[in-house]
């Protein structure tokens, strides 16, 4: 789904040929596989692919190969942890000017801190939580995310990240399902979770069903761009 959001944004910017550089960790690999699967339908061509180990400290050889590949218009980096921060730094060192897309695996302020000025202009799909204050007033998620952000920052003194938000959503969905089921019986609670409809969480609006256990659709993601060391919402996404 994150791939679909990225590809949709690429199409809006009229970019259709990309390179991918993915972490070989579970998240990076699984997102890379998903991107490869949805690319043809989204009209995106993957010109070349590189990978790096999650603990590598220098990705300049891979980025040099990407830079030298003709026709590449943008680069997508599925990954998690410190890898994307190092990729972003190396990207700037090599002077690559093509648009860089990160994944929601870097949806925390730490990424901006670690990547430093190299993070300027990087785009990524992320939940509304990161831009709580900048959401339009009519957005149904706004009260939920603003409230969560305020409570979290008061209690922990740290900036929010979507990872905490996901945990919060998961807990709340479980609690509400248990309240509806009026018991803690596993089968009943599962049935109630599957009936979750219109739950407004920090990660999006959740509508589950027996065949859909994620319950989110593309509207859960917003396209963000990093400007001035902070998250900003790309208009219309």
């Amino acid at each position, binding site marked *: 789904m994150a791939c679909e959001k990225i590809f949709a944004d690429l199409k809006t910017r009229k970019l259709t040929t990309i390179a991918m550089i993915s972490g070989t960790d579970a998240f990076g690999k699984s997102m890379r596989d998903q991107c490869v699967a949805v690319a043809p339908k989204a009209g995106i061509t993957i010109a070349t692919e590189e990978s790096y180990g999650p603990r590598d400290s220098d990705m300049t*050889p891979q980025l040099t190969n990407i830079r*030298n590949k003709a026709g590449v218009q943008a680069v997508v980096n599925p990954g998690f942890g410190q890898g994307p921060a190092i990729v972003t730094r190396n990207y700037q060192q090599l002077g690559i000017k093509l648009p860089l897309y990160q994944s929601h695996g870097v949806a925390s302020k730490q990424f901006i801190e670690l990547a430093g000025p190299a993070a300027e202009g990087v785009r990524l799909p992320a939940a509304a939580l990161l831009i709580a204050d900048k959401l339009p007033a009519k957005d149904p998620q706004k009260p939920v995310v603003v409230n969560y952000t305020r409570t979290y920052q008061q209690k922990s003194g740290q900036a929010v990240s979507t990872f905490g938000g996901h945990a919060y959503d998961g807990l709340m969905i479980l609690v509400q399902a248990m309240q509806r089921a009026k018991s803690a019986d596993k089968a009943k609670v599962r049935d109630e979770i599957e009936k979750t409809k219109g739950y407004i969480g920090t990660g999006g609006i959740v509508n589950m069903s027996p065949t859909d256990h994620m319950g989110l659709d593309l509207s859960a993601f917003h396209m963000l761009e990093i400007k001035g060391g902070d998250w900003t919402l790309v208009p219309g996404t």
Partner: protein
Amino acid sequence: MAELLQFVFSGLTVGAIYALVALGFTLIYNASDIINFAQGEFVMLGGMTTVFMALAGVPLPLAALIAIIVTTGIGLALHRFAIEPARGASPVALIMITIGASVFLRGVAQIVFDKRFHSLPPLFGADSIQFGGAAILPQSLVVLAGATVIVILLWLFVERTLLGKAVIATAANRLAARLIGIDTRRIVDFSFAVSAAIGAIAGILVTPITLTSYDVGTLLALKGFAAAMLGGIGSPLGAVVGGILIGMIEALSAGYLSSSYKDAVAFLIILVVLVAMPQGLFGRVKVERV
């Protein structure tokens, strides 16, 4: 052509990191035939302690100094409390003790520090130096310089000082060394302390490039150990050459072959070298008189 130069620079960057970590293995091995697998944790402690001291408001140079002193203390404690009481055991048992210590230190680091990634500011700025169409970070050159300085100091120590000679004597034959009045326990204490200090310095110098967290020690120790074995364990020059060689092989494989297999290629080369020359490139051949 510019891309070959870029791959070489990348190899130098990564190789210098491995070299600096590999150097930490040499002194302990020289003094006691032990491979200290907690060496990676010394590197981690150097970086993380500096980061946390700096976050607490301590000026960076002082934070680095405190980190080195703390890590040296932990190295000494490792010897005194974990290795020394088991000194009669076989080298394999002692190595397993160091692995246990490495797991322990990693666990404690999670609690004392945190589980996030941290960085340190590079010494000479974050802008890369452009040369011949390729870019290299100034910090990579700092790491290389650091490794060179340590190699020279270690060589001077072993060749020119009495204490250095005592370390070699202890390694050659512990009983004979004790018979001529060398306090072998102090010597091994010393080797652990200095190796911990080298590890801490390595951690402080490489963190601006690699970032640090509580578990960077594992992979760094593995690659550093491979570098030390390739270069000949016990030889400081070998450690540096081995490190740079592995870094180069990785970068060139990632660039010219496939980035998925770069680790495999590096370890394959190590296997080949060790089969052909078990003592590594610069190692001493062990000769036993029968």
